């Protein structure tokens, strides 16, 4: 009799414990879960749904139009220009930031003198408020009193209105983008370089690879592979979402030369109030970002499991 009582009691206590744990688990996670649905997943689905309507901000009715928004997008020259500009921006800023960041990181890491200073100097643009610095850049790029034109004149060029000239506007924004992102790339590469085991350089030296080029090719570059992929995807994700400099410096002009996707979404949605249309662009925007973020998570995994 007594034995039976003993064997039953632990099982009951176990079940009670498990129930208690489930209750605690959901209790603690409930606010966050609710908010994820409310603020993240719900709106994401909402954008998808909106893209199939012709709704405008302030309109009373919602009309279902299927894929008409997307069809209009396919014919919209502004959208295609915007897409093209965004891709050009990424195509310039990402390689330059990645390569530049790697070069600077290797130079900084190669010798201990003044390391902290250089790291701080290159990272400062990343840490500062981009909008404020964009305003400063606007002043620097001023056609007559800007520092850039004064320096350009000293080098023999003729002063240009960098931000208003259709041929230089996008390039100028690219330059500012690189200025702002190179430090981030550098810091990520610094971490990656530190993770390369010193023993490998020793082994390579004994194997016969002891020149700077051979060391880079046989040890540094292969071991930085995952980091390089990671940094590239990070820079791509950030560049894809460029908005601040465009809105503050050029508003997408002159003549849509600097129109980028996020600015188009903003303009369509909040200047022209065409919520449905803006939602359609957002869906495409989101699709690309999902792909890039998925890539980033895979790249992050490889960093951890390499070797």
């Amino acid at each position: 009799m007594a034995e039976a009582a003993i064997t039953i009691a632990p099982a009951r206590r176990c079940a009670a414990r498990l129930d208690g744990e489930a209750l605690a688990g959901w209790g603690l996670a409930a606010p966050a879960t609710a908010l994820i649905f409310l603020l993240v997943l719900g709106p994401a689905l909402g954008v998808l749904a909106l893209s199939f309507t012709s709704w405008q901000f302030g309109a009373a009715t919602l009309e279902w139009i299927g894929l008409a928004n997307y069809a209009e997008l396919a014919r919209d020259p502004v959208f295609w220009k915007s897409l093209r500009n965004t891709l050009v921006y990424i195509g310039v800023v990402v390689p330059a930031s990645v390569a530049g960041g790697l070069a600077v990181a290797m130079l900084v890491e190669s010798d201990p003198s003044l390391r902290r200073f250089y790291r701080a100097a290159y990272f400062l643009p990343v840490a500062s408020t981009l909008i404020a610095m964009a305003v400063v850049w606007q002043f620097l790029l001023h056609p007559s009193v800007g520092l850039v034109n004064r320096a350009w004149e000293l080098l023999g060029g003729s002063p240009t209105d960098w931000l208003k000239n259709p041929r230089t506007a996008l390039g100028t924004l690219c330059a500012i983008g690189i200025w702002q992102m190179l430090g981030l790339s550098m810091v990520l590469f610094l971490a990656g370089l530190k993770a390369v085991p010193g023993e490998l350089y020793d082994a390579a030296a004994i194997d016969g690879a002891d020149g700077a080029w051979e060391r880079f090719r046989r040890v540094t570059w292969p071991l930085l592979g995952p980091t390089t992929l990671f940094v590239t995807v990070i820079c791509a994700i950030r560049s894809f979402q460029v908005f601040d400099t465009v809105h503050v410096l050029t508003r997408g002009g002159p003549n849509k030369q600097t129109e980028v996707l996020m600015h188009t979404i903003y303009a369509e949605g909040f200047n022209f109030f065409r919520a449905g249309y803006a939602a359609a662009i957002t869906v495409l925007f989101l699709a690309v970002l999902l792909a890039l973020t998925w890539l980033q998570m895979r790249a992050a995994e490889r960093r951890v499991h390499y070797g």
Partner: protein
Amino acid sequence: MSRALRLLRHALLLAGAVVMLAPFVWMLLTSFKPPTEIFARELNWLPQQWHAWENYRDALTKVPLLRYLANGLVVCGAIFALQVLVNLPAAYALAKLRFAGRDGLFRLVLLGLMIPHTATAIPLYLMLHKLGLLDSYAALVLPFVVSVFGIFLMRQFFRGVPDELLHAARLDGMGEFEIVWRVMLPAAVPALTAFGIFSFVWHWNDYFWPLLVISSPDLATPPLGTVFFRNEEAGIHYRPLMAGTVIITAPLVVAFLAAQNRFIEGVTLSGVKG
């Protein structure tokens, strides 16, 4: 490293550093100059006349710059505090407790990680509009209270905390809720600091969202306030504008220089988030 190579390294790095720092230096120097020097023909680095007091005074009186900074502090502080309140318990539950649907919830978090704020902007704006919360502190704070990135990060960290610590706490009679605040929170301080810096800097520098939801200058955060200031100045009075940007940029720059390692750690977490 040979002297020649060392010199070359310095030459290359300094050249780059000059380009990186030039805007900051020029901004600072311009904020000290009188009007005549801005438009002078010759290029002068240092101010010939010290006009700093007037420039800064102008900046502070034309627009409520200090108010903008204060808004930034209030908004970012509120966001972080609420993020800790909402996300820490969820991260603990996902990391250490076993309950039905836990894995599903985590997959939801991972899904949420892939959705950027810009994609959800329009519906969120609509929601706030319906609730009459546009143009308020609530509009700036509420959408960011749940941070899937924060949950992900803290869960990662909590998984590394030994289970024995929790067994001991439970034996001491603590309930799960107490465990979160008395045991996990103190243990998580390093990760929380990094996340805190990341969150603070991210939201301090956020321009897109305040641009959408705020129209009164009173509520502007630093980036929005800077643009208000710039638009006011109509491009002629650069000195007060530069003085203004110095004031706006100073807090982050000072914070960065004071705690470089922590700062870099926090901001590069955004490398993980993207």
